[in-house]
């Protein structure tokens, strides 16, 4: 019985969300609200400002480079996290004085 109830709750959630989605703007061309002067700047000026032809690479590593720095730190943290769980004890092979992990 509980399974049916939770199933019903999620169907209701999807119904509410899709009703809201239908009331949202479904425009997919230059007049869409998301296609504003920021996008036009990326598409028109990015070649002169960054010299990169691939606009996505230009945005990724020049305009929003701080995001990508955060990204590499997420990767670095993921390694430290996984290593801290799965490599608990100093291995025979590794130098025993390995105090900083």
């Amino acid at each position, binding site marked *: 019985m509980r399974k049916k109830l939770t199933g019903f709750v999620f169907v209701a959630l999807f119904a509410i969300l899709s009703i809201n989605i239908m009331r949202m703007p479904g425009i997919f061309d230059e007049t869409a609200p998301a296609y504003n002067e920021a996008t036009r700047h990326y598409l028109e000026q990015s070649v002169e400002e960054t*010299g*990169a032809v691939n606009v996505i690479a230009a945005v990724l590593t*020049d305009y929003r480079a701080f995001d990508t720095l955060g990204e590499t730190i997420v990767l670095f943290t993921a390694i430290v996290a996984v290593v801290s769980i799965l490599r608990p004890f100093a291995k025979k092979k590794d130098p025993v004085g390995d105090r900083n992990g």
Partner: protein
Amino acid sequence: MDDLIVKTVVRIIIPFVQLFGIYIILHGHVSPGGGFAGGTLIGTSFILYTLVFGIGPAKKKFSHRMSEFAESGGIILYLAIGVVGMVVAGSFLTNAEAGFPLGEAGSLLSGGMIPLLMIGIGIKVASTMVTLFHTLIEEETS
């Protein structure tokens, strides 16, 4: 998986996979792709090597020490480029004003700091994938 055919085939194609990965990273600012995609390619080639030849020889190819260096190396390269922008042009991670040569758009040597950052990201992603895979694999054997 010590089947001879698989070993020889893998030994032949791995250099080409890595070469293609390096191509994708270096051409990140000219054609689709870039640091993330190219790094994944190189990482997968190491994982393929580990799968076929087992963890022992793979550890020699991509030792614990080297993976440690590659991880912090990627980030240090990224930070160094950012600090250059900060020192020269006054704000972190600047490209054009910080004196990085923009070069002629569309050519390989264009884009100022973008290819350098792409290489940094590529090293980081590749070494992350390989280290995580080795950690998970090592877990079973130890």
